[in-house]
């Protein structure tokens, strides 16, 4: 569980760590917390999984990853777990989820591939299909053509009041 001091800390670092020699000391100043406490709390929050990752968060497009495909499959329910586990092990797969089927949308397994160009992505998809034995299942490949909006989920003070 997290307490109000954790929340305060998370709110202060959400937009980024200070880029200076003692960043956690700097954050501590903002939160009125000693550096050691900042380090202890962040270490625990990381272990708890609340902080998934600490470090560089990249923009795909700026690293030259311009092609982004969402591939959706309709696989038997009893195979979803095994196939999801297999697909997610490919280094170029950036997301992999099981999602509920919808009326007129029978797909239940989703993965995302970010690649430098469309041909590369299709080639990587072919590798997945072969290695995971997916060729007999219906799928659709949805390339993104435009990105209208992209932001991280903001963690706002209003939502923090005694949650």
């Amino acid at each position, binding site marked *: 569980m997290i307490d109000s001091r954790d929340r305060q800390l*998370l709110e202060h670092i*959400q937009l*980024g*760590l200070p*880029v*200076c*020699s003692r*960043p*956690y*000391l700097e954050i501590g100043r903002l939160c009125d917390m000693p*550096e050691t406490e900042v*380090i202890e709390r*962040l270490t625990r929050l*990381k272990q708890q*999984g*609340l*902080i*998934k*990752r*600490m*470090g*560089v*968060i*990249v*923009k*795909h497009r*700026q*690293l030259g*990853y311009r092609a*982004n495909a*969402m591939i959706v499959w309709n696989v038997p329910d009893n195979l*979803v*777990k095994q196939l*999801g*586990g297999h697909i997610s092990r490919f280094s170029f797969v*950036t997301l*992999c*989820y*099981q*999602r509920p089927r*919808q009326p007129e*949308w029978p797909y239940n397994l*989703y993965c995302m591939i*970010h690649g430098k160009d469309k041909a590369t992505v299709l080639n990587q998809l072919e590798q997945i299909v072969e290695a995971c034995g997916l060729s007999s299942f219906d799928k659709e490949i*949805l*390339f*993104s*053509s*435009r*990105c*209208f*909006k*992209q*932001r*991280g*989920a*903001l*963690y706002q003070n209003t*939502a923090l009041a005694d*949650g």
Partner: protein
Amino acid sequence: MDEIDKQIINALQDGFPICDAPYQQAAAQLGLSEQDLISRLKALLDNGALTRFGPLYNAEQMGGALTLAAVKAPIDRFDEVTEIINGFPEVAHNYARNHELNMWFVIATQQTPEQIQQTINAIERLTSLTVYNMPKKKEYFVNLKLEA
């Protein structure tokens, strides 16, 4: 962006130390001086090559909720629908995709799962379109690293 910048980006996607002098520690592993790493990171952030340097939170553990949703936006109403959907602060990402379901967006809230449904209802009301709601049932762990 030169080779050293790329090495920095690749290495720091794997994590950043939580200790009193983390840049010094990370720099040592890269064979750089602390000051060198700091000034290069600053430059990468300033020129927009890096979006963010810091934590990535687990939204659900933070007490929030999120879902993936999509609509079939008629081509002649595409801009109007985009504007309506992007106008919701709960909409975090929105992508056009080459399919009949041509607009895919993530709805993220910091509060209750009910807030997701309320947002969906409001989008349906304002656009007169059906919103397909595809919350995750299970997430499979992936390597989040992108080679620079």
